[in-house]
């Protein structure tokens, strides 16, 4: 088998045993790797609903065919489980080098079940797996725990104090990168699993190594030449989004009551670069290097990304860049998700402002935030309530109309009332309020391209296409940022050109065509490697007959499989919605259209997806995608 080790381990922490998981070649061929292969394992493991913090729940850590191949931006790995925040499937993706090390250790994936009676780590080296005591690591922050786990040339991932205390949005940290969303760190903590280390010398066979090498050179050249992946992201990182988002009314501000922050210039990517940046830093195999190393409070630390600048900055009316950098650092050290943490605090601030919950949190006052990271991570005082996240706070205190979460997961920093496609993406994302799993259509709606964010026309079809493409790219093991290079350079470079403006204006009109093509992958039974390099890479690594059509079908299969796991966990079509603030409250009083018009898009979305009116994939859809037996 090309591109894979062909080996998955199942580690039972209750009994301290390890066995091989019988992954079939058909599973690799249908689900590739990453989040989709993990969803397949989770779907097959359970028969009914599973509680997140239970012995039954499993953690599935997966690599992908591109992992270890030297493809650009291919060092990512995935952690999937049932989320303690949403009760649904969560797939949390992370950069760094752990994925590469796990694959070199000889495994494509590991499955962790049960619960250890005492703190442990899992040590994986050249297909030898040992469960070791981690008593000496318990209570340590993530950087110290990683230091204590031995030499730097091994892949490491750990939880911090937040994971140990079952904070519902605790993260898993690897080097300086985070598998942040959905509380995978709390599931580690529940299982008394402090971390995992991996290394080895395993190599996988490649179907066509020479052609792959040539293709790789072209792909890296494409990424470096593109204005987004070769210029903007290396120059400013994701923080470079802040200014444009502010002008486009897309920057989550004051608990999503606005899309613009008066002080955005104090927290934007330009200020971060000019006043704090020391150097760029990225994952192994990455030519983009979007990560930042910044200097603040006399230390060199990881710089905040867009989401952190939004949720711990504008969303709290916090205009202090040094404060955001320090909060970002502390959240990584304690191991909590900056998005959910910031959003939960924003909600708590509004509850106080409205006289609903008497607490000390005030918009624009960042003085108490740093101590809140520790209190939340240790579940002390008010931190014990904040550790539950926005949804549970709203169930206790009220304020559901302005509790900004979807299916229990707090939304990202993109305010969707100025980007209808992003609104639909949030509402339908399998993870909940996730911009990337939601399809990230906002990249067309005024960020990377200039398609109108106000219109709902065509947005259902484009959202589906982007969701499926992101799903497939993620399953293949590629960073999603590589997909931005698919946007034709001339559309990005010349937005005022007459032809480009016509194309941007006409794109919504072609939604029907996009929807028509979606269910007919044979219409795209070809590769355009210079536009979308991922399918051709997969083909050269694995030997699978991968085309653009089949690639999107892989994504669609994964998206539907995740949906089926969620339905088994109790998800209903009525959960595909947004908080009332985003659906009913005008973002701008002078614009009667500044709400998310979800009703205009959701029915079309279901129809194109091949789901019934309750949002359940039909028998034909599941059969077409080979998710059920063809009887």
């Amino acid at each position, binding site marked *: 088998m090309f591109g894979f080790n062909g080996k998955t381990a199942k580690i039972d922490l209750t009994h301290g045993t390890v066995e091989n998981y019988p992954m079939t070649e058909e599973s690799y061929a249908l689900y590739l790797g990453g989040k989709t292969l993990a969803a397949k394992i989770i779907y097959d493991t359970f028969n009914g609903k599973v509680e997140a913090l239970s012995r039954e729940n499993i953690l599935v850590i997966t690599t992908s065919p591109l992992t270890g191949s030297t493809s650009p931006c291919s060092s990512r790995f995935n952690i999937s489980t049932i989320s303690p925040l949403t009760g649904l499937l969560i797939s949390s993706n992370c950069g760094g080098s752990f994925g590469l090390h796990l694959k070199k250790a000889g495994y494509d994936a590991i499955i962790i079940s049960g619960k250890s009676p005492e703190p442990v780590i899992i040590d994986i080296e050249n297909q030898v797996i040992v469960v070791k005591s981690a008593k000496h690591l318990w209570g340590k922050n993530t950087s110290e725990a990683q230091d204590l786990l031995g030499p730097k040339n091994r892949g490491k991932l750990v939880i911090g104090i937040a994971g140990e205390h079952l904070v519902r949005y605790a993260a898993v940290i690897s080097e300086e990168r985070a598998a942040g969303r959905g509380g995978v760190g709390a599931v580690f903590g529940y299982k008394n699993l402090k971390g995992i280390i991996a290394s080895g010398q395993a190599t996988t066979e490649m179907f066509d190594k020479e052609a792959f090498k040539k293709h790789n050179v072209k792909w890296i050249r494409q990424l470096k030449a593109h*204005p*987004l*992946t070769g*210029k*903007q*992201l290396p*120059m*400013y*990182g*994701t*923080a*470079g*989004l802040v*200014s*444009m988002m502010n*002008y486009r009314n897309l920057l989550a501000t004051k608990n999503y009551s606005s899309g*613009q922050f008066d002080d955005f*210039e104090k927290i*934007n990517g*330009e200020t971060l*670069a*000019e006043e704090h940046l020391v150097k760029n830093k990225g994952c192994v195999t990455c030519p983009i290097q*979007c990560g930042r190393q910044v200097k603040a409070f006399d230390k060199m630390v990881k710089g905040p*990304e*867009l989401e952190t600048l939004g949720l711990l900055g504008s969303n709290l009316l916090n205009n202090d860049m040094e404060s955001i950098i320090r909060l970002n650092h502390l959240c990584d050290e304690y191991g909590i998700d900056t998005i959910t943490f910031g959003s939960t605090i924003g909600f708590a601030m509004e509850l106080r402002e409205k006289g609903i919950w008497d607490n000390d949190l005030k918009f624009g006052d960042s003085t108490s935030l740093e101590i809140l990271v520790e209190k939340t991570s240790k579940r002390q005082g008010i931190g014990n309530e904040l550790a539950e996240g926005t949804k549970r706070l709203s169930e206790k205190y009220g304020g559901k109309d302005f509790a900004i979460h979807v299916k229990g997961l707090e939304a990202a920093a993109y305010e969707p009332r100025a980007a209808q496609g992003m609104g639909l993406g949030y509402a339908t994302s399998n993870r909940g309020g996730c*911009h*990337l799993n939601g399809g*990230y259509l906002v*990249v067309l709606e005024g*960020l*990377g*391209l*200039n398609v109108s964010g106000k219109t709902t026309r065509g947005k259902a079809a484009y959202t589906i296409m982007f969701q499926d493409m992101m799903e497939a790219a993620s399953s293949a093991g590629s960073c*999603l*940022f590589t997909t*931005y290079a698919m*946007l034709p350079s001339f559309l*990005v*470079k*010349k*937005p*005022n*050109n007459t032809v480009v*403006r016509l194309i941007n204006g006409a794109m919504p009109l072609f939604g029907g065509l996009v929807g028509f093509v979606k269910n007919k992958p044979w219409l795209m039974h070809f590769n355009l490697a210079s536009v979308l390099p991922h399918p051709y890479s997969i083909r050269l690594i694995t030997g699978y007959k991968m085309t653009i059509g089949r690639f999107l079908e892989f994504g669609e299969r994964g998206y539907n499989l995740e949906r089926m796991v969620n339905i088994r966990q109790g998800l209903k079509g009525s959960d595909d919605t947004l908080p009332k603030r985003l659906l009913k409250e005008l973002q701008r009083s002078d614009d009667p259209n500044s709400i998310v018009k979800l009703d205009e898009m959701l029915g079309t979305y279901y129809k194109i997806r091949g789901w019934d009116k309750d949002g359940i994939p039909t028998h034909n859809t599941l059969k077409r995608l080979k998710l059920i037996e063809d009887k």
Partner: protein
Amino acid sequence: MFEIKFFGWIRSEIGIPKLSMSERTVMEALDEIIKCYPQIDKSQLMQSIMFINQKPVVGKQRLSIKLKAGDELAILSLVSGG
């Protein structure tokens, strides 16, 4: 005087975050920028995204808009991320 603010890679290439000018049209302001900062690629500047007082301005007609005292012209390049 009105204010011009630069964001994104245009700001990096021009080397300053903002500047002030006396009343003139957008086209005249862009000409002045090119004259003062010859390192800027004229076509790139002409293709930038612009907002006047937070409102987007597009098309050729944007170039003839007269900027008055107290106005803000923001010049940005397109972006991506996650």
